[in-house]
């Protein structure tokens, strides 16, 4: 007992009168903190470098024509990527049609029915693993299932591929948000005699809508820039097309085609295309965060 007290006193003293080496330890701590901070700055610097350069190269080509006109023939200046922008939106719409119900459905299952238990864990694991499967293999899969059967590349196939990529992203986010909804809300609904499905669909989902939609926009933004699966599904189209059973152009594919071509004018189009693509992605992400009504339930 007595010995213990002495030890405590010694420790207390050591706080007041620093042992030799104390200054060195503090210095090392500060140095490491500064190092970590500068690594963070390096990451942000990279972001600025990439974004700034794209802004610098892409901005001169930005005009109304870019959004409204088809590309000009090789050698002529002007023209735009209207068909690719339209195609990208078509693909996004199709992807959302598949990805949102499926993803939100799995999210509801995981959050409302399978918080614990083996099957829920298995589904959760599968969703996580699927989110790491490369988009190119999903593209090949959709190629073998849809394109080979229908015997041509189509916007539909592209939408399905992008939709499959969206599913795990939407599912995990939806589950995370739904778990944050207070249990009391469900109990209040059930105590009024509402069926569980009505409680889920009309009480729990709306109160978490903001977070879920932000998750969906993030997933959609991630998918909008995917080009790898489109090589095997929607391919590309030089012309304006809104036919779902025909190949359709898209911004990532056009950027790739223009960037790898040997014409300077096409490179300019590629930079502007990249700027527009990033603009759409960031705009959607920001707008969802700023203007969506609802409660701030976020992961």
């Amino acid at each position, binding site marked *: 007992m007595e010995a213990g007290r002495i030890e405590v006193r010694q420790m207390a003293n050591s706080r007041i009168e620093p042992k030799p080496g104390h200054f060195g330890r503090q210095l090392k701590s500060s140095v490491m903190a500064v190092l970590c901070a500068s*690594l963070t700055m390096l990451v942000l610097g990279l972001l600025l470098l*990439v974004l700034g350069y794209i802004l610098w190269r892409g901005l001169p080509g930005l005009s109304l024509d870019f959004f409204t006109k088809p590309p000009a023939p090789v050698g002529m200046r002007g023209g735009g990527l209207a068909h690719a922008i339209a195609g990208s939106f078509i693909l996004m719409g199709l992807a959302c049609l598949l990805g949102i119900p*499926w993803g939100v459905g799995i999210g509801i299952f995981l959050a409302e029915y399978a918080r614990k238990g083996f099957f829920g864990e298995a589904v959760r694991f*599968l969703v996580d693993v699927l989110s790491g499967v490369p988009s190119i293999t999903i593209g*090949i899969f959709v190629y073998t299932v849809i394109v080979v059967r229908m015997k041509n590349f189509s916007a539909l196939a592209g939408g399905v591929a992008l939709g499959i990529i969206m599913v795990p992203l939407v599912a995990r986010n939806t589950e995370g948000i739904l778990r944050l909804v207070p249990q009391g809300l469900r109990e209040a609904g059930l105590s009024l005699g509402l069926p569980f499905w009505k409680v889920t669909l009309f009480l729990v989902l709306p109160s978490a809508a903001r977070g879920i939609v932000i998750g969906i926009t993030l997933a959609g933004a991630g998918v909008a820039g995917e080009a790898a699966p489109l090589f095997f599904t929607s391919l590309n189209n030089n012309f304006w097309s809104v036919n779902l059973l025909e190949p359709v152009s898209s911004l990532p594919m056009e950027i790739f085609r223009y960037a790898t071509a040997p014409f300077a004018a096409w490179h300019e189009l590629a930079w502007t295309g990249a700027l527009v*693509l990033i603009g759409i992605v960031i705009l959607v992400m920001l707008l969802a965060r700023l203007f969506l009504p609802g409660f701030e339930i976020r992961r």
Partner: protein
Amino acid sequence: MDPCACCLRAFIFGGVFGGILITTNRATYPGDTFFRRLTILFALALFLLVLVMAFQLYREAQPSLQRFGWPFVWGREWDPVHEKFGALPYIYGTLVSTLLALALAGPISLGAAVYLAEFAPRRLKATLAFLVDLLAGIPGIVYGLWGSFVLAPFLRNCLEPWLGKYLGFLPLFQGPPFGIGLLAAGIILAIMCIPVMTAVTREVLEVVPAGQREALLAFGATPWEVVRLAVLPYAREGIIGAFFLGLGKALGETLAVTMVIGNRPEISLSLFSPAHSMTSVIVNEFAQAVKAIHLAALIHIGLLLFGITLLVNIIARLLIYRLGRKVSRWKQVE
């Protein structure tokens, strides 16, 4: 229709509908039963999807699998005209560029994550995290564009000659500077992995229980000592898991790599030399694959990629889950 496929289908559909029907029904309202089964259907459909995906890739790669078998993995020759296929140059390119990316991105994202989780002022945290997410939101194709027009010339004119001059005694930094090549692919992949690895590592560090930190603080440890002695060792599995996630992302990245790696199927020790990767060979040759065996060989590579990334992601998730269980055990004790 081969019998194998029929059996698989019967098995899968039987499993799905059986699984839905045998789920116990405790609901009072008929709508509840329906809704529950609907969500279970969504979940089971995902299992179905992954199974069918694996099976479909396996079946489409069948001609190549039967003809080349495992030697496909270490065969060095890729000659569509004479129908000789070996994937080693592509596997080598993917492996080297990915490992290089991990070596570059690992320390950077670990440091950034430590800063975001431990040192950053509370007000700055959310903004910084959003900016890192933004970096993750930039599409791969844009990185490819930037890499081929900005990074590659920079490497050719500045970095690679410099490396060759001072570190040229290493076989890694020999040969003429091309700009595009393994080094460029590694750097671009590193930039693309950093946001994912930073975000996951940060999440992992933030679940470390406060008690771990407080114990060391009570001993008079400096903030860095808390990180080094309490936080990092505790979150070790999670950090390794985050790195594996980055690895998986880098392995599957397609267009950014295709645009900067040079697309030449060579195996060279030098990081300056152009190479090829598994994803870029599929994208480059898919449209020109007229022969069935060529297409099958490409899908064979896709199957290998699918297997590898699946494995990497499974390891990553298991590691992260292990950390989660450790944390929840700790909370029970508390």
